[in-house]
């Protein structure tokens, strides 16, 4: 079953703790275990742009990133394929993004019959 791990930083202005090696090790562990489906990390929040389309169909562009009132900021995601929620939670706990005030939200991926 596929789960998406949504990796959040604790706050938009949290110091950029660049534990690059830890992330590389985590990525390698996911690949070695054969559970990684896909994953990306996102660029800094200041580079984000939100698009909303109003009821009349006219696009409204907001340039200051996602909802400013949200303290937690999505920093990236991994999609993994594991047998059950416990396995997914274990990977989430190993993710460097789950420490230092960050968090990882685990969401099952909806799959539809074709």
């Amino acid at each position, binding site marked *: *079953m596929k789960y998406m791990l949504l990796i959040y930083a604790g706050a938009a202005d949290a110091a950029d703790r660049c534990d690059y090696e830890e992330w590389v090790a985590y990525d390698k562990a996911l690949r070695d275990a054969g559970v990684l489906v896909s994953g990306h990390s996102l660029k800094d929040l200041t580079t984000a742009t939100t698009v909303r389309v109003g009821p009349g169909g006219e696009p409204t562009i907001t340039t200051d990133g996602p909802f400013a009132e949200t303290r937690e900021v999505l920093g990236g995601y991994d999609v993994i394929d594991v*047998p*059950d*929620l*416990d*396995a997914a*939670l274990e990977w989430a706990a190993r993710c460097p993004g789950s420490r230092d005030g960050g968090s990882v939200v*685990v969401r*099952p991926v909806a799959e539809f*019959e074709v």
Partner: protein
Amino acid sequence: MDERAAGAAASVEAMFREERGRLLAALVRRFGDLDLAEEVASEAIEAALVRWPVDGVPPKPGAWLMTTARRRAVDRLRRDQVYAARLAVLQVEADRAGPAAPADAGGDLPDERLLLFFTCAHPALPAEDRAALTLRCLAGLATPEVARAFLVPPATMAKRIVRAKNKIREARVPFRVPGADELPGRLPGVLQVLYSIFTEGYAASAGPDLQRPDLAEEAIRLARILRRLLPAEREVTGLLALMLLTYARRAARTGPDGGVVLLDDQDRRLWDGPMIEEGRELVVVALTGGPPGLYGVQAAIAALHDEAPGVAATDWPQVVALYDVLLAIAPSPVVAMNRAVAVAMRDGPEAGLALLDGLAEDPRLRGHHPYQAARADLLCRLGRSAEAAAAYREALKLAGTEPDRAHLRRRLREAEGS
């Protein structure tokens, strides 16, 4: 109804109580779906109610129920192809996760209820739903009964149970017993669920009655099952001991009018001797062979109260020492408060009151009526009646059940009168 039929009806009754959880667990293990398992388990029991009075009780009642339930499940799966495809996948994965116990270990159904204990208490489920699911799946209570247990409308409870089951199915909360390395992390959650069921039964948080024996007894029954399944886990033994040693006082805890009788004033002849004896034996087991656990120490404190012929003769220095151990394992303001009361018994009310007043700032005690009542009691004993009355009034505002309030009103009148 002839004798054989009556006997069969009685064994179905017993089966329903004792085997429903076991049957459900075995079906969940096999089909990986709680809803389907519940439906076919009920159907099998209904079929037994019809067949057994006619045919007699089969030699392996559990296996009979399992076979019947399994056939019903297969019928359903044939009718619902989409469901069948999904369950087939689940089943393959369940088999990969570990070999199923042989079908006739012990001659009848293998006991797989441990899976259900851990699934119902899974940390991914909302805390408020864990006890409800445990009562539903392991105690076999119907949803309206579970609703009554938690004093919520049946529709609300039905929604909560559906939501929890939905999460188990859709997020695929596994049906499995945690491995030895995970057990220390997961077992406390299971014990907490049982203890919260017990506590609600022993000292209801709201409602007309102080005690709800049905719930307390259900918690004890489930703790006994858990202990059979995990005999080496000393905290399971400690929890069972704690429940028994506490519940043994039930008859003395309320007066003829249903009012509260405090430990000091209880008629100790009403305490349940055999239950205390069993609890004491379990405490010894729980505290032997390793660092003491949370429930074991609490059980030891309960045992000291139960052993004493009276309040004055209680081994208070030992009680204080055990509270010190408890504070070291699990610091909490309520434990600190109880320790202060024990210190008051050992060293006098002044010493206890000083400790209680030191806790006054803790926000977790602000809404806790026993804290105000304990202060009031010590103030009374020190002859400071006006302050005692004020504390009783504060406690009255916070108390949730009518017997508690009636007791506090009585004490308030005494404090005002002196």
